[in-house]
């Protein structure tokens, strides 16, 4: 093990990207659950659009991360379907009202941002030569991090407009 925050191999990078894929799936699946369970009197166009965009954005990030894992020199398949797990746990941890849904969505976007931020820093700190181009990898991750920041901002603005 290492106490330093850095990525030392293709295998370790692939595992971290796989965790990113799962985080995106959690956001995507919870946004779907939020939408399905939104009480009728709490439905409005803005939140429906926000949840739809969150799902589409997470699906896009997931595909981009999977494409990177597929190019790495490892045997593992990056695809994992965690939707049933999310659904199972949602009954226990899912928010019950509009504000709770927005807060959960904000938390998901901010957590993803933090994950990509830490991952980028750990890759930048590493001197390892990966089997894929480092700059292209970092560019993709920075781009995804940026859209997570924008996503968090959009949720925060919607929350603010309700107060």
């Amino acid at each position, binding site marked *: 093990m290492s106490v330093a925050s850095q990525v030392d191999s293709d295998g370790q990078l692939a595992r971290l990207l796989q965790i990113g894929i*799962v985080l995106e799936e959690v956001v995507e699946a919870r946004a779907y659950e939020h939408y399905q369970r939104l009480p009728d009197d709490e439905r409005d166009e803005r939140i429906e659009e926000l949840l739809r965009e969150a799902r589409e954005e997470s699906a896009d990030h997931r595909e981009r991360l999977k494409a990177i894992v597929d190019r790495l020199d490892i045997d593992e398949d990056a695809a994992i379907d965690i939707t049933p797990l999310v659904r199972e746990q949602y009954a226990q941890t899912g928010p019950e009202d509009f504000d709770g849904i927005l807060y959960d969505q904000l938390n998901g976007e901010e957590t993803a941002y933090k994950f990509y931020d830490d991952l980028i820093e750990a890759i930048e700190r590493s001197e390892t030569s990966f089997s894929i181009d480092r700059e292209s990898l970092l560019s993709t991750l920075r781009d995804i991090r940026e859209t997570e920041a924008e996503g968090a901002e959009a949720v925060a603005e919607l929350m603010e407009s309700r107060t």
Partner: protein
Amino acid sequence: MNTADQYLKAVFLVQQIEDGPASTGALADRLGVSPASANEMVGKLADQDLLVHEKYKGATLTDAGEERARDALATYCVLERFLANVLDVEEYRDEAGQLEAVIDETVADRLDMIIDREPDCPDCFDAEADACSHLVEQLGEAGAGAGAGD
């Protein structure tokens, strides 16, 4: 998880294994760092009143240090359980050790949403087995049922 929290978690676990203060040598072995590095970090944590360091004996966590160590251990448990149960990683201990420095507590909290952690976490963590005793038992690994630290 930052370096300080990794050290506090290591002190917590070594204290359980040694049933007393954690020697810097044992900490260095556990963390894969040099004894000099371990000694330096132990000094810094003592300065922050997170542990007490007695020369020739070792480090003992203060109440504040133990609280942070337990939080760090819970984060680590999420990672181990996520790797073992969701990603089916056989070498989940080694991989959790490699990844913990990059995984933040908030990220672990999110991963926690899709795993079944026991309510007694992190008390169920078996320091000798370096894994949650429930997970060891569930996976049918040798050493299942070994005493978990309380």
